[in-house]
């Protein structure tokens, strides 16, 4: 404790003077980002047991290359290095999660360069990118390494060691994804492959199906998504509208005739869950207002189903989100917040 006189001498050196407000909430960008990172980890852990140890290596390569790309490019551009905020880690994780588990370990590196340097840093850094960086990374890899991206699928390890696939020949063990089977051979072939409908639901729900590294376990993705919803970092509007519209449109158009498609398989297969909770909800590349978010989500769902049913690829969520990203500024412009005074009765 000091008396007033000595206080007066020391006070002018240490007192801060600023405009109100003088308190701030504890939520920071890095807090949000690292929470997202943590909620993204369970799918990675389960993927090691489903597809083997190399998923961890691919993910690590992806994360490290994203973080290094961000640090180096920001240094070179004389900008503050922001790798501590965790957004590059998220991009790295998501980039690895949406490529097949059987790809060569170095494949994420060109993707990371494209995602971080071109899509994010050159656009102006965090907050200024138009497209989701991880998805651009994947789209780039799809164009440059199409064989690896479309055929390096692995069958889930049922009774083997997690190192089963480590040195194996990728081509020999390739296994078609459920969406590929569905697209080219139909529902009957899918049921035949997995045994029965109930096996499909349980296997898909917990993640034991061929697919990208982080997209298979609907259960764990849902868990992570619920954490973000509980923390109020995201709202339900985008995930629900993406999944809802995908399910509805698949049910209507996805079957042999109208209204015979299987909506549940549509959501559980492919990357719809991961995209709906973790990629379509990216703050920077999604609209702010609730109605705009619903339209954004429905747009993604509709484009996903269109690409799945009519397009050349079995899965469409990646391109659906990328196609809806540039619509966001327009959606923000069209759907403004309602002013308080607009409701005035005068």
């Amino acid at each position, binding site marked *: *404790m*000091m*008396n*007033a006189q000595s*206080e*007066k001498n020391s*006070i*002018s*050196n*240490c*007192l*801060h*003077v*600023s*405009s*109100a*407000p*003088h*308190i*701030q*909430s*504890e*939520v*920071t*960008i890095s*807090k*949000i980002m690292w929470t997202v990172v943590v909620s993204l980890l369970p799918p990675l852990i389960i993927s090691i047991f489903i597809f083997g140890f190399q998923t961890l290596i691919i993910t690590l390569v992806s994360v490290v290359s994203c973080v290094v790309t961000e640090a180096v490019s920001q240094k070179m551009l004389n900008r503050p290095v*922001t790798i501590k*905020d965790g957004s590059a880690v998220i991009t790295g994780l998501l980039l690895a999660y949406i490529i097949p588990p059987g790809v060569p370990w170095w494949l994420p590196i060109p993707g990371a360069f494209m995602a971080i340097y071109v899509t994010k840093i050159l656009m*102006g*850094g*965090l*907050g*200024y990118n138009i497209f989701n960086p991880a998805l651009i990374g994947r789209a780039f890899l799809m164009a440059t390494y199409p064989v690896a991206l479309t055929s390096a699928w692995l069958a889930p390890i049922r009774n083997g060691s997690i190192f089963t696939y480590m040195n194996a020949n990728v081509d020999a063990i390739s296994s078609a994804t459920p969406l590929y089977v569905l697209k080219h051979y139909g529902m009957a072939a899918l049921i035949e492959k997995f045994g029965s409908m109930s096996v499909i639901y349980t296997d898909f729900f917990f993640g034991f199906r061929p697919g990208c590294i982080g997209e298979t376990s609907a259960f764990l993705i849902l868990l992570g998504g619920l954490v973000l919803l509980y923390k109020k970092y995201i709202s339900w509007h985008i995930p629900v509208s993406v999944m809802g519209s995908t399910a509805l449109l698949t049910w209507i158009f996805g079957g042999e005739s109208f209204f015979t498609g299987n909506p549940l398989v549509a959501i559980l297969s492919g990357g719809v869950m991961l995209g709906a909770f973790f990629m379509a909800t990216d*703050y*920077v590349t999604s609209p*702010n*207002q609730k109605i705009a978010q619903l339209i954004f989500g429905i747009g993604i769902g509709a484009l996903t189903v269109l690409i799945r049913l009519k397009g050349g690829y079995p899965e469409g969520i990646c391109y659906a989100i990328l196609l809806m990203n540039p619509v966001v500024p327009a959606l923000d412009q069209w759907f*403004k*917040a*309602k*002013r*308080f*005074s*607009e*409701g*005035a*009765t*005068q």
Partner: protein
Amino acid sequence: MKTTVLNIAKLLTFQKGGINPPEKMRLTKNLPIEVMPTPPEVAIFLKQHVGTACLEHCIRADMCLHFVRQPTDNACKIVFKGLQNTLYSEDYFLNDNICFNSSEVHVQQEEKVSEGDLIGKGSKLGSNLHASISGLVKTISDTPHPFGKEPAIVLSIDPDAKPKSYPIVNENWMSLSREDLFAKIKEAGIVGLGGAGIPIDSKLSVKRDSKLDTLILNSESEPYLTSNYRIMLEHAFEIIEGAKILLTILDIKECIIGVENNKPDAIIALNQAIENDTQKNGSKNQFKIVVQPLQTKYPQDATDQITFTLTGRIKPTGKRISASGVNIQNVYTAKVIYDAVVCHKPFYEKVITVSGRGIARPANLLVKIGTRLRDIVDYLGGMTQDVAKIVIGGPMLGFAVSSLEIPITKTTPGVLFLTQDEIDIQPSYDPCIRCGFCLQACPMGLEPNNVSIYVEAGKSADTEQFGIMEDCFECGCCAYVCPSKRPLVQFIKLAKLKILEAQQKKKQRESKPKESKQREST
């Protein structure tokens, strides 16, 4: 018992926006109002409150978004880069024309005054000033003020003088006419204690033809501040009587007292007082006063919000709140009005909350108007070493000050001594990540994110399109929630100033051609 009372009552709140900062009321919530001994000297500003014309000056003071006072060169160094890289010298504030509503001095130097004497006469929008201690008029000179320096009457104490007491002299105030009541209140120099401190007489002089039908009493909803809570707890009777006086003056019957549900004792105390009142007056009672528990949410006490919460009415943009048929006063104002009418006591002392972890002993203090922060600090045992910010007012709206010489004014709700961990000063801010938190937090449905981007790009004058001039009342919810720690409301304040400047320039440009034409014609 408490919980049942609160569960039955439906909690009302405003629909859009708002935040729930940590209440921090525990520091002073349970401390009864304590009378601070008379300080040896008080400095009473001639300008006790901020009038509407002063808006521009307030904004100008806020132009320094964040500055650390450097004692050596007497200049304020701006910490936030990229916005204003210039240095403002302190003179920038001092030489400005300040348009406070001043009172006329009614005493001379060396004149002897006793407690409660009239020392300043209110003119137009000013309020009467009364001596808060007995003693001599030491000098009338400039005294530090949150915005620079202001002329003040400095009184030094006469140590032999006895404290004045105000017994009840006029319990039967009902017999007085509206005009007499109004004159009594005006004479006592009462100002609105909720915020800007508009003199009560101008707040009450509503046009007769207005459709006024409801008096709203609100109480502060900022963190830390508990002075209103203690007043409601300890002076519930006076508040109800004051409300009845206000109703009489306004010539209406209905009064709603909105109290947030984090103050359950206050709700019970006020309800008890109303019950006693009905029992006492029985059928004679013509007034309808109700206590309405409100959801705890900042800014629950703001004009537009409390009007909507309690009456469902929305104020049209650009209109005064009386257009919605309500008159809003603070609960403490009602108490002070009771004192003025029933005890003939002028308004020269008030209850403030002194809180924060930077003060040795937080308290709810009854202090004389004009008591310097220094005396309060000494009385409460001094400050801790790690005090980082002294705030006059609440943490959401208050003014940070750098001098302990600043005296308490009629509108000071409290003084906070905040430590580093309480204010969480960020050295810089990050770009907008478009999370939309500020859009959800804004109680007026504005777009602080877009305004901030415009201001950063140097296009402050173009932000009028976002409606900040009409609707933004600078509650600070946007800056509070921003995860990038962007000074959003500070950006808006800056933008408002730039818009005003642009409008003035435009006016000048328009008036110039006229002048030249006139010259030609002559």
